[in-house]
Protein backbone atom coordinates (compact mmCIF):
# COMPACT_ATOMS: atom_id res chain seq x y z
CA UNK A 1 0.00 0.00 0.00
CA UNK A 2 2.78 2.40 0.94
CA UNK A 3 6.23 2.18 -0.60
CA UNK A 4 9.05 4.51 0.25
CA UNK A 5 12.28 4.22 -1.65
CA UNK A 6 15.52 6.02 -0.92
CA UNK A 7 13.84 8.95 0.82
CA UNK A 8 16.04 11.91 1.67
CA UNK A 9 14.60 14.75 3.71
CA UNK A 10 15.95 18.12 4.61
CA UNK A 11 15.21 20.30 7.58
CA UNK A 12 16.53 23.66 6.50
CA UNK A 13 20.10 22.83 5.57
CA UNK A 14 20.29 19.67 7.64
CA UNK A 15 19.64 16.27 6.17
CA UNK A 16 17.25 14.55 8.57
CA UNK A 17 16.80 11.39 6.50
CA UNK A 18 19.48 9.95 4.28
CA UNK A 19 18.06 7.35 1.98
CA UNK A 20 15.32 5.53 3.88
CA UNK A 21 13.24 2.73 2.37
CA UNK A 22 10.11 1.28 3.93
CA UNK A 23 7.00 -0.51 2.84
CA UNK A 24 3.63 -1.23 4.38
CA UNK A 25 1.25 -3.77 2.86
CA UNK A 26 -2.52 -3.65 2.99
CA UNK A 27 -3.92 -4.64 6.37
CA UNK A 28 -0.59 -4.53 8.15
CA UNK A 29 0.28 -2.79 11.39
CA UNK A 30 3.86 -1.60 11.14
CA UNK A 31 5.89 0.10 13.86
CA UNK A 32 8.69 2.52 13.19
CA UNK A 33 10.83 2.99 16.25
CA UNK A 34 13.76 5.20 16.98
CA UNK A 35 15.10 7.65 19.53
CA UNK A 36 14.68 11.42 19.59
CA UNK A 37 15.99 13.06 16.44
CA UNK A 38 16.17 9.83 14.45
CA UNK A 39 13.95 11.36 11.78
CA UNK A 40 10.69 9.57 12.52
CA UNK A 41 8.45 12.61 12.50
CA UNK A 42 10.22 13.97 9.44
CA UNK A 43 9.34 10.78 7.61
CA UNK A 44 5.67 11.09 8.55
CA UNK A 45 5.54 14.76 7.58
CA UNK A 46 6.96 13.88 4.17
CA UNK A 47 4.26 11.24 3.65
CA UNK A 48 1.48 13.64 4.65
CA UNK A 49 2.75 16.49 2.51
CA UNK A 50 3.46 18.73 5.51
CA UNK A 51 7.06 18.97 4.40
CA UNK A 52 7.84 19.20 0.71
CA UNK A 53 11.63 19.31 0.75
CA UNK A 54 12.30 15.65 0.09
CA UNK A 55 13.84 13.54 -2.64
CA UNK A 56 13.23 9.93 -3.47
CA UNK A 57 9.98 8.14 -3.98
CA UNK A 58 6.81 7.86 -1.91
CA UNK A 59 4.16 5.72 -3.54
CA UNK A 60 0.69 5.23 -2.13
CA UNK A 61 -1.46 2.64 -3.89
CA UNK A 62 1.15 2.69 -6.66
CA UNK A 63 0.86 6.44 -7.25
CA UNK A 64 3.44 9.04 -6.28
CA UNK A 65 2.61 11.55 -3.54
CA UNK A 66 5.27 13.98 -4.74
CA UNK A 67 4.16 17.60 -4.93
CA UNK A 68 0.73 16.96 -3.38
CA UNK A 69 -0.59 19.21 -0.65
CA UNK A 70 -1.91 17.74 2.60
CA UNK A 71 -5.60 18.03 1.62
CA UNK A 72 -4.98 16.08 -1.58
CA UNK A 73 -3.17 13.38 0.37
CA UNK A 74 -6.01 13.14 2.90
CA UNK A 75 -8.35 12.77 -0.07
CA UNK A 76 -6.31 9.77 -1.25
CA UNK A 77 -7.06 8.01 2.03
CA UNK A 78 -4.04 8.84 4.21
CA UNK A 79 -4.87 10.27 7.62
CA UNK A 80 -2.45 11.27 10.35
CA UNK A 81 -2.67 11.54 14.12
CA UNK A 82 -0.06 14.26 14.61
CA UNK A 83 2.59 14.36 17.27
CA UNK A 84 1.37 16.13 20.38
CA UNK A 85 -2.20 15.39 19.21
CA UNK A 86 -2.83 18.93 17.90
CA UNK A 87 -6.52 18.84 18.62
CA UNK A 88 -8.35 22.19 18.52
CA UNK A 89 -8.81 23.11 22.22
CA UNK A 90 -11.36 25.92 21.85
CA UNK A 91 -13.67 23.79 19.71
CA UNK A 92 -16.07 21.23 21.10
CA UNK A 93 -15.24 17.54 20.94
CA UNK A 94 -17.95 17.09 18.34
CA UNK A 95 -16.63 19.93 16.18
CA UNK A 96 -13.14 18.45 16.39
CA UNK A 97 -14.46 15.15 15.11
CA UNK A 98 -16.45 16.82 12.37
CA UNK A 99 -13.34 18.68 11.26
CA UNK A 100 -11.73 15.33 10.60
CA UNK A 101 -14.41 14.76 7.97
CA UNK A 102 -13.87 18.19 6.40
CA UNK A 103 -13.27 16.84 2.91
CA UNK A 104 -16.20 14.45 3.08
CA UNK A 105 -18.59 17.25 4.05
CA UNK A 106 -17.36 19.00 0.98
CA UNK A 107 -18.27 15.97 -1.09
CA UNK A 108 -21.71 16.07 0.58
CA UNK A 109 -21.23 12.63 2.13
CA UNK A 110 -23.39 13.61 5.13
CA UNK A 111 -24.87 10.16 5.66
CA UNK A 112 -21.49 8.46 5.65
CA UNK A 113 -20.08 11.04 8.04
CA UNK A 114 -22.84 10.69 10.61
CA UNK A 115 -22.55 6.89 10.47
CA UNK A 116 -18.81 7.10 11.08
CA UNK A 117 -19.36 9.62 13.85
CA UNK A 118 -21.59 7.10 15.65
CA UNK A 119 -19.00 4.37 15.13
CA UNK A 120 -16.24 6.48 16.59
CA UNK A 121 -18.35 7.55 19.56
CA UNK A 122 -19.00 3.84 20.17
CA UNK A 123 -15.30 3.12 19.92
CA UNK A 124 -14.49 5.86 22.46
CA UNK A 125 -17.55 6.17 24.72
CA UNK A 126 -15.84 8.83 26.80
CA UNK A 127 -15.92 11.13 23.77
CA UNK A 128 -19.69 10.71 23.58
CA UNK A 129 -20.03 11.75 27.22
CA UNK A 130 -17.97 14.84 26.58
CA UNK A 131 -19.09 15.64 23.06
CA UNK A 132 -20.31 19.15 23.99
CA UNK A 133 -17.24 20.05 26.05
CA UNK A 134 -14.33 22.07 24.72
CA UNK A 135 -11.59 19.72 23.61
CA UNK A 136 -9.08 21.64 25.74
CA UNK A 137 -10.81 20.42 28.90
CA UNK A 138 -10.13 16.75 28.14
CA UNK A 139 -7.38 14.79 29.87
CA UNK A 140 -4.29 13.81 27.90
CA UNK A 141 -5.54 10.32 27.17
CA UNK A 142 -8.96 11.57 26.10
CA UNK A 143 -7.30 14.10 23.83
CA UNK A 144 -5.30 11.33 22.21
CA UNK A 145 -8.50 9.35 21.68
CA UNK A 146 -10.04 12.44 20.16
CA UNK A 147 -7.05 12.86 17.84
CA UNK A 148 -7.38 9.23 16.72
CA UNK A 149 -11.13 9.63 16.31
CA UNK A 150 -10.68 12.80 14.30
CA UNK A 151 -8.28 11.03 11.93
CA UNK A 152 -10.71 8.17 11.51
CA UNK A 153 -13.46 10.60 10.55
CA UNK A 154 -11.66 11.09 7.25
CA UNK A 155 -12.51 7.44 6.54
CA UNK A 156 -8.87 6.61 5.76
CA UNK A 157 -7.41 3.52 4.16
CA UNK A 158 -4.13 4.20 5.86
CA UNK A 159 -3.65 5.62 9.35
CA UNK A 160 -0.41 7.19 10.51
CA UNK A 161 0.25 7.82 14.18
CA UNK A 162 3.06 10.00 15.44
CA UNK A 163 4.03 9.12 19.03
CA UNK A 164 0.55 8.33 20.29
CA UNK A 165 1.93 7.24 23.67
CA UNK A 166 3.67 10.52 24.38
CA UNK A 167 3.08 11.78 27.89
CA UNK A 168 0.39 9.24 28.70
CA UNK A 169 0.05 6.82 31.60
CA UNK A 170 0.87 3.18 30.69
CA UNK A 171 -2.72 2.11 31.25
CA UNK A 172 -4.01 4.71 28.82
CA UNK A 173 -1.34 3.73 26.29
CA UNK A 174 -2.54 0.14 26.54
CA UNK A 175 -6.10 1.20 25.90
CA UNK A 176 -5.21 3.23 22.83
CA UNK A 177 -2.98 0.49 21.44
CA UNK A 178 -5.77 -2.05 21.98
CA UNK A 179 -7.98 0.18 19.90
CA UNK A 180 -5.36 0.17 17.13
CA UNK A 181 -5.38 -3.63 17.12
CA UNK A 182 -9.18 -3.51 16.89
CA UNK A 183 -8.95 -1.11 13.97
CA UNK A 184 -6.43 -3.30 12.17
CA UNK A 185 -8.90 -6.16 12.43
CA UNK A 186 -11.44 -4.07 10.53
CA UNK A 187 -8.95 -3.93 7.66
CA UNK A 188 -7.28 -0.58 8.31
CA UNK A 189 -3.58 -0.33 7.46
CA UNK A 190 -1.56 1.37 10.20
CA UNK A 191 1.91 2.82 10.52
CA UNK A 192 2.83 3.81 14.05
CA UNK A 193 5.87 5.84 14.92
CA UNK A 194 7.01 5.38 18.49
CA UNK A 195 9.74 5.87 21.02
CA UNK A 196 7.95 3.42 23.26
CA UNK A 197 9.38 0.46 21.37
CA UNK A 198 8.04 -2.21 23.72
CA UNK A 199 4.40 -1.18 23.46
CA UNK A 200 4.57 -0.58 19.72
CA UNK A 201 6.33 -3.83 18.83
CA UNK A 202 3.95 -5.86 20.97
CA UNK A 203 1.00 -4.96 18.76
CA UNK A 204 2.83 -4.62 15.43
CA UNK A 205 3.27 -7.22 12.68
CA UNK A 206 6.55 -5.81 11.51
CA UNK A 207 8.94 -3.14 12.66
CA UNK A 208 11.64 -0.82 11.44
CA UNK A 209 14.34 0.81 13.51
CA UNK A 210 15.48 4.26 12.48
CA UNK A 211 18.71 5.76 13.77
CA UNK A 212 20.06 9.21 12.86
CA UNK A 213 18.34 9.24 9.50
CA UNK A 214 19.13 5.66 8.48
CA UNK A 215 17.13 2.46 8.69
CA UNK A 216 19.32 0.17 10.78
CA UNK A 217 17.03 -2.79 11.37
CA UNK A 218 13.89 -4.24 9.88
CA UNK A 219 11.97 -7.40 10.55
CA UNK A 220 9.12 -9.22 12.25
CA UNK A 221 8.02 -7.41 15.37
CA UNK A 222 8.64 -10.47 17.54
CA UNK A 223 12.18 -10.76 16.21
CA UNK A 224 12.88 -7.13 16.91
CA UNK A 225 11.52 -7.47 20.42
CA UNK A 226 14.06 -10.26 21.01
CA UNK A 227 16.91 -8.49 19.24
CA UNK A 228 19.80 -7.63 21.49
CA UNK A 229 20.51 -4.28 19.85
CA UNK A 230 16.91 -3.17 20.13
CA UNK A 231 16.79 -4.31 23.71
CA UNK A 232 19.88 -2.38 24.57
CA UNK A 233 18.99 0.79 22.74
CA UNK A 234 15.23 1.09 23.20
CA UNK A 235 13.95 -1.30 25.78
CA UNK A 236 16.63 -0.51 28.36
CA UNK A 237 16.88 -4.17 29.42
CA UNK A 238 20.47 -4.24 30.58
CA UNK A 239 20.13 -0.83 32.15
CA UNK A 240 17.39 -2.04 34.40
CA UNK A 241 19.57 -4.98 35.44
CA UNK A 242 22.39 -2.59 36.03
CA UNK A 243 20.31 -0.47 38.33
CA UNK A 244 18.67 -3.39 40.05
CA UNK A 245 22.13 -4.85 40.75
CA UNK A 246 23.08 -1.67 42.52
CA UNK A 247 19.83 -1.22 44.39
Amino acid at each position, binding site marked *: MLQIRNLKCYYGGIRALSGVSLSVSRGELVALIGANGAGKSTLLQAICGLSSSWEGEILFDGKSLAGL*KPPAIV*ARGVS*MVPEGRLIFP*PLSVLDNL*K*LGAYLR*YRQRDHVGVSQDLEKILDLFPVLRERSKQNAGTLSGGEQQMLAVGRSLM*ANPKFLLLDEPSMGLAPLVVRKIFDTLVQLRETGLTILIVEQNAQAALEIADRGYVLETGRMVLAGEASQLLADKEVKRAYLGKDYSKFYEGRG
Partner: protein
Amino acid sequence: MVFTLFAAVIICTGAALEGDYYHEQLLTFIGIFTLLAVGLNMLMGYAGQISLGHAAFYGIGAYTTGALTVHLQWSPWASLPCALIMAGVIAYIVGKPTLKLSGYYLGMGTLGFGMIMHVLFREWTTITGGPNGLVGIPSLSLWGLDLSTGRNYLYVVWGCVLLTFFICDRLVNSRVGRALRAIHYSEQAASAVGVDTAKAKLQVFVFSAVVAALAGFLYAHMVMFISPGTFTFLASVKLVAMVVIGGMASIWGALLGATFLTLLPEHLSVFADYEMIIYGGILMGVMIFLPQGLTRGVLDIYEKFRAKRKGTVED
Protein backbone atom coordinates in the same frame (compact mmCIF):
# COMPACT_ATOMS: atom_id res chain seq x y z
CA MET B 1 -35.65 32.54 16.10
CA VAL B 2 -33.02 34.97 17.37
CA PHE B 3 -33.11 36.63 13.99
CA THR B 4 -36.88 37.11 14.03
CA LEU B 5 -36.54 38.70 17.45
CA PHE B 6 -33.73 40.89 16.17
CA ALA B 7 -35.82 41.98 13.17
CA ALA B 8 -38.72 42.81 15.48
CA VAL B 9 -36.47 44.91 17.70
CA ILE B 10 -35.24 46.85 14.66
CA ILE B 11 -38.75 47.50 13.37
CA CYS B 12 -40.00 48.62 16.77
CA THR B 13 -36.99 50.87 17.33
CA GLY B 14 -37.46 52.36 13.90
CA ALA B 15 -41.13 53.05 14.63
CA ALA B 16 -40.35 54.52 18.05
CA LEU B 17 -37.77 56.88 16.57
CA GLU B 18 -40.20 58.29 13.99
CA GLY B 19 -39.18 61.87 13.30
CA ASP B 20 -36.21 61.82 15.67
CA TYR B 21 -33.71 62.53 12.93
CA TYR B 22 -30.60 62.52 15.11
CA HIS B 23 -31.20 59.10 16.59
CA GLU B 24 -32.33 57.63 13.29
CA GLN B 25 -29.09 58.68 11.72
CA LEU B 26 -27.05 57.47 14.65
CA LEU B 27 -28.70 54.07 14.48
CA THR B 28 -28.08 53.91 10.74
CA PHE B 29 -24.39 54.60 11.33
CA ILE B 30 -24.31 51.87 13.95
CA GLY B 31 -25.74 49.54 11.33
CA ILE B 32 -23.04 50.44 8.81
CA PHE B 33 -20.30 49.92 11.38
CA THR B 34 -21.89 46.67 12.51
CA LEU B 35 -21.63 45.42 8.93
CA LEU B 36 -17.96 46.36 8.81
CA ALA B 37 -17.27 44.80 12.19
CA VAL B 38 -19.10 41.55 11.51
CA GLY B 39 -17.21 41.07 8.25
CA LEU B 40 -13.90 41.79 9.91
CA ASN B 41 -14.84 39.50 12.78
CA MET B 42 -15.14 36.58 10.38
CA LEU B 43 -11.56 37.24 9.34
CA MET B 44 -10.09 38.18 12.72
CA GLY B 45 -12.25 36.52 15.31
CA TYR B 46 -12.86 33.24 13.54
CA ALA B 47 -9.92 32.71 11.21
CA GLY B 48 -7.46 34.65 13.39
CA GLN B 49 -6.04 36.76 10.58
CA ILE B 50 -5.32 40.40 11.41
CA SER B 51 -6.25 43.08 8.91
CA LEU B 52 -5.16 46.65 9.61
CA GLY B 53 -6.34 47.90 6.24
CA HIS B 54 -10.01 47.06 6.30
CA ALA B 55 -11.10 50.66 5.78
CA ALA B 56 -9.62 50.34 2.29
CA PHE B 57 -12.37 47.91 1.26
CA TYR B 58 -14.94 50.17 2.89
CA GLY B 59 -13.52 52.95 0.71
CA ILE B 60 -13.42 50.81 -2.42
CA GLY B 61 -17.12 50.10 -2.03
CA ALA B 62 -17.93 53.77 -1.47
CA TYR B 63 -15.71 55.14 -4.24
CA THR B 64 -16.73 52.55 -6.82
CA THR B 65 -20.40 53.35 -6.43
CA GLY B 66 -19.60 57.05 -6.08
CA ALA B 67 -17.57 57.22 -9.28
CA LEU B 68 -20.06 55.17 -11.30
CA THR B 69 -23.10 57.14 -10.20
CA VAL B 70 -21.51 60.61 -10.33
CA HIS B 71 -19.30 60.39 -13.42
CA LEU B 72 -21.27 57.89 -15.49
CA GLN B 73 -24.74 58.57 -14.05
CA TRP B 74 -25.33 54.89 -13.41
CA SER B 75 -28.23 53.82 -11.26
CA PRO B 76 -27.01 52.91 -7.74
CA TRP B 77 -28.59 49.48 -8.17
CA ALA B 78 -26.33 48.82 -11.15
CA SER B 79 -23.27 50.09 -9.32
CA LEU B 80 -23.94 47.95 -6.24
CA PRO B 81 -22.78 44.67 -7.82
CA CYS B 82 -19.81 46.50 -9.37
CA ALA B 83 -18.77 47.83 -5.94
CA LEU B 84 -19.02 44.38 -4.38
CA ILE B 85 -17.19 42.66 -7.23
CA MET B 86 -14.49 45.33 -7.30
CA ALA B 87 -13.76 44.83 -3.59
CA GLY B 88 -13.85 41.06 -3.99
CA VAL B 89 -11.43 41.06 -6.92
CA ILE B 90 -9.02 43.47 -5.23
CA ALA B 91 -9.18 41.39 -2.04
CA TYR B 92 -8.37 38.31 -4.07
CA ILE B 93 -5.36 39.94 -5.74
CA VAL B 94 -4.09 41.44 -2.49
CA GLY B 95 -4.91 38.41 -0.38
CA LYS B 96 -3.23 35.84 -2.58
CA PRO B 97 0.32 36.93 -1.66
CA THR B 98 -0.31 38.63 1.72
CA LEU B 99 -2.24 35.81 3.36
CA LYS B 100 0.90 33.70 3.17
CA LEU B 101 2.02 35.98 6.00
CA SER B 102 0.71 35.58 9.50
CA GLY B 103 0.57 37.44 12.80
CA TYR B 104 2.31 40.80 12.88
CA TYR B 105 3.55 40.39 9.33
CA LEU B 106 0.04 40.06 7.95
CA GLY B 107 -0.85 43.14 10.01
CA MET B 108 1.98 45.06 8.35
CA GLY B 109 1.03 43.83 4.89
CA THR B 110 -2.60 44.88 5.20
CA LEU B 111 -1.52 48.14 6.82
CA GLY B 112 0.54 48.91 3.72
CA PHE B 113 -2.38 48.09 1.47
CA GLY B 114 -4.66 50.38 3.45
CA MET B 115 -2.21 53.25 3.12
CA ILE B 116 -1.79 52.74 -0.62
CA MET B 117 -5.56 52.82 -1.10
CA HIS B 118 -5.85 55.94 1.01
CA VAL B 119 -3.25 57.70 -1.16
CA LEU B 120 -5.12 56.53 -4.24
CA PHE B 121 -8.42 57.96 -2.93
CA ARG B 122 -6.69 61.26 -2.23
CA GLU B 123 -4.57 61.64 -5.35
CA TRP B 124 -6.57 60.10 -8.20
CA THR B 125 -8.44 63.37 -8.56
CA THR B 126 -10.20 62.68 -11.87
CA ILE B 127 -12.05 59.70 -10.43
CA THR B 128 -12.21 60.27 -6.69
CA GLY B 129 -12.36 64.04 -6.54
CA GLY B 130 -9.14 64.07 -4.57
CA PRO B 131 -8.92 65.57 -1.09
CA ASN B 132 -12.06 67.63 -1.77
CA GLY B 133 -14.10 64.48 -2.00
CA LEU B 134 -16.76 63.29 -4.36
CA VAL B 135 -19.95 65.35 -4.30
CA GLY B 136 -23.41 64.62 -5.64
CA ILE B 137 -23.81 60.91 -5.04
CA PRO B 138 -27.53 60.16 -5.55
CA SER B 139 -29.68 58.76 -2.80
CA LEU B 140 -31.39 55.40 -3.09
CA SER B 141 -34.92 54.89 -4.27
CA LEU B 142 -36.77 51.77 -5.25
CA TRP B 143 -39.88 51.64 -7.46
CA GLY B 144 -40.65 55.25 -6.71
CA LEU B 145 -40.20 54.74 -2.96
CA ASP B 146 -37.73 57.23 -1.56
CA LEU B 147 -35.32 55.29 0.62
CA SER B 148 -33.30 58.30 1.68
CA THR B 149 -35.56 59.42 4.52
CA GLY B 150 -34.30 58.63 7.98
CA ARG B 151 -36.50 55.70 8.81
CA ASN B 152 -36.51 54.04 5.39
CA TYR B 153 -32.76 54.14 5.13
CA LEU B 154 -32.47 52.79 8.63
CA TYR B 155 -34.52 49.79 7.52
CA VAL B 156 -32.41 49.32 4.39
CA VAL B 157 -29.17 49.31 6.37
CA TRP B 158 -30.44 47.07 9.14
CA GLY B 159 -31.98 44.77 6.57
CA CYS B 160 -28.49 44.32 5.13
CA VAL B 161 -27.11 43.76 8.63
CA LEU B 162 -29.73 41.12 9.30
CA LEU B 163 -29.01 39.36 6.02
CA THR B 164 -25.26 39.42 6.68
CA PHE B 165 -25.77 38.13 10.22
CA PHE B 166 -27.85 35.30 8.86
CA ILE B 167 -25.19 34.35 6.29
CA CYS B 168 -22.39 34.59 8.86
CA ASP B 169 -24.35 32.51 11.34
CA ARG B 170 -24.84 29.78 8.74
CA LEU B 171 -21.17 29.95 7.75
CA VAL B 172 -19.87 29.79 11.30
CA ASN B 173 -21.85 26.70 12.17
CA SER B 174 -20.86 24.84 9.04
CA ARG B 175 -17.86 22.99 7.73
CA VAL B 176 -16.37 26.34 6.68
CA GLY B 177 -16.70 27.88 10.14
CA ARG B 178 -15.11 24.87 11.80
CA ALA B 179 -12.23 25.04 9.33
CA LEU B 180 -11.71 28.75 10.05
CA ARG B 181 -11.61 28.17 13.79
CA ALA B 182 -9.19 25.30 13.23
CA ILE B 183 -6.91 27.60 11.22
CA HIS B 184 -7.07 30.13 14.05
CA TYR B 185 -5.66 27.58 16.45
CA SER B 186 -3.10 25.84 14.26
CA GLU B 187 -2.68 26.03 10.52
CA GLN B 188 -0.61 22.91 10.41
CA ALA B 189 -3.14 20.86 12.32
CA ALA B 190 -5.93 22.22 10.14
CA SER B 191 -3.98 21.28 7.07
CA ALA B 192 -3.34 17.80 8.45
CA VAL B 193 -7.07 17.10 8.68
CA GLY B 194 -7.47 18.13 5.05
CA VAL B 195 -8.34 21.82 5.20
CA ASP B 196 -6.85 23.79 2.30
CA THR B 197 -5.76 26.59 4.62
CA ALA B 198 -4.56 29.00 1.92
CA LYS B 199 -7.88 28.76 0.08
CA ALA B 200 -10.00 29.04 3.22
CA LYS B 201 -8.11 32.14 4.37
CA LEU B 202 -8.44 33.75 0.95
CA GLN B 203 -12.17 32.99 0.84
CA VAL B 204 -12.87 34.59 4.21
CA PHE B 205 -10.69 37.58 3.29
CA VAL B 206 -12.70 38.13 0.10
CA PHE B 207 -15.95 37.64 2.02
CA SER B 208 -15.06 40.24 4.62
CA ALA B 209 -13.95 42.66 1.87
CA VAL B 210 -17.27 42.27 0.06
CA VAL B 211 -19.19 42.93 3.28
CA ALA B 212 -17.05 46.03 3.88
CA ALA B 213 -17.79 47.20 0.34
CA LEU B 214 -21.51 46.79 1.00
CA ALA B 215 -21.08 49.01 4.05
CA GLY B 216 -19.18 51.49 1.87
CA PHE B 217 -22.00 51.49 -0.68
CA LEU B 218 -24.59 52.16 2.01
CA TYR B 219 -22.45 54.88 3.52
CA ALA B 220 -21.88 56.67 0.20
CA HIS B 221 -25.59 56.77 -0.67
CA MET B 222 -26.49 57.90 2.82
CA VAL B 223 -24.22 60.90 3.21
CA MET B 224 -24.06 61.53 -0.57
CA PHE B 225 -20.55 62.86 -0.21
CA ILE B 226 -17.35 60.93 0.37
CA SER B 227 -13.83 62.09 1.08
CA PRO B 228 -10.58 60.24 1.76
CA GLY B 229 -10.62 61.24 5.43
CA THR B 230 -13.26 58.59 6.18
CA PHE B 231 -11.10 55.70 4.98
CA THR B 232 -7.84 56.26 6.80
CA PHE B 233 -5.65 54.00 8.88
CA LEU B 234 -7.45 55.30 11.95
CA ALA B 235 -10.74 54.01 10.57
CA SER B 236 -9.16 50.57 10.14
CA VAL B 237 -7.93 50.66 13.72
CA LYS B 238 -11.38 51.67 14.92
CA LEU B 239 -12.84 48.62 13.16
CA VAL B 240 -10.29 46.35 14.81
CA ALA B 241 -11.20 47.96 18.16
CA MET B 242 -14.90 47.25 17.52
CA VAL B 243 -14.16 43.58 16.93
CA VAL B 244 -11.90 43.26 19.96
CA ILE B 245 -14.10 45.28 22.34
CA GLY B 246 -17.24 43.51 21.21
CA GLY B 247 -15.68 40.09 21.49
CA MET B 248 -13.76 38.02 18.99
CA ALA B 249 -15.41 35.10 17.28
CA SER B 250 -18.93 36.28 18.05
CA ILE B 251 -21.40 37.67 15.54
CA TRP B 252 -23.29 39.53 18.25
CA GLY B 253 -19.99 40.83 19.57
CA ALA B 254 -19.59 42.81 16.36
CA LEU B 255 -22.98 44.41 16.99
CA LEU B 256 -22.08 45.27 20.59
CA GLY B 257 -18.64 46.58 19.67
CA ALA B 258 -19.94 48.75 16.83
CA THR B 259 -22.76 50.11 18.99
CA PHE B 260 -20.47 50.82 21.92
CA LEU B 261 -17.77 52.57 19.91
CA THR B 262 -20.29 54.62 17.90
CA LEU B 263 -22.34 55.75 20.91
CA LEU B 264 -19.43 56.42 23.24
CA PRO B 265 -18.07 59.55 21.50
CA GLU B 266 -21.64 60.90 21.21
CA HIS B 267 -22.19 60.67 24.93
CA LEU B 268 -18.73 61.87 25.84
CA SER B 269 -19.02 65.16 23.99
CA VAL B 270 -20.16 66.81 27.23
CA PHE B 271 -16.61 66.42 28.51
CA ALA B 272 -15.39 68.68 25.68
CA ASP B 273 -11.61 68.83 25.82
CA TYR B 274 -11.29 65.72 27.95
CA GLU B 275 -13.37 63.61 25.57
CA MET B 276 -10.53 61.63 24.02
CA ILE B 277 -8.86 60.97 27.37
CA ILE B 278 -12.05 59.52 28.79
CA TYR B 279 -12.71 57.61 25.57
CA GLY B 280 -9.27 55.99 25.73
CA GLY B 281 -9.65 55.33 29.44
CA ILE B 282 -12.95 53.51 28.92
CA LEU B 283 -11.46 51.35 26.17
CA MET B 284 -8.57 50.42 28.45
CA GLY B 285 -10.97 49.71 31.28
CA VAL B 286 -13.07 47.39 29.16
CA MET B 287 -10.02 45.46 28.03
CA ILE B 288 -8.60 45.19 31.54
CA PHE B 289 -11.80 44.03 33.20
CA LEU B 290 -13.41 42.17 30.29
CA PRO B 291 -10.42 40.87 28.34
CA GLN B 292 -12.64 38.58 26.28
CA GLY B 293 -14.67 41.54 25.07
CA LEU B 294 -18.12 42.79 25.98
CA THR B 295 -20.11 39.74 24.84
CA ARG B 296 -18.14 37.13 26.78
CA GLY B 297 -17.67 39.51 29.70
CA VAL B 298 -21.37 40.23 30.09
CA LEU B 299 -22.19 36.53 29.74
CA ASP B 300 -19.61 35.66 32.41
CA ILE B 301 -21.01 38.22 34.82
CA TYR B 302 -24.52 36.91 34.19
CA GLU B 303 -23.45 33.31 34.79
CA LYS B 304 -21.59 34.23 37.96
CA PHE B 305 -24.62 36.12 39.19
CA ARG B 306 -26.90 33.17 38.45
CA ALA B 307 -24.56 30.72 40.15
CA LYS B 308 -24.45 32.95 43.21
CA ARG B 309 -28.22 33.22 43.40
CA LYS B 310 -28.55 29.48 43.01
CA GLY B 311 -26.04 29.11 45.86
CA THR B 312 -28.04 31.31 48.23
CA VAL B 313 -31.27 29.48 47.44
CA GLU B 314 -29.68 26.17 48.28
CA ASP B 315 -28.37 27.56 51.55
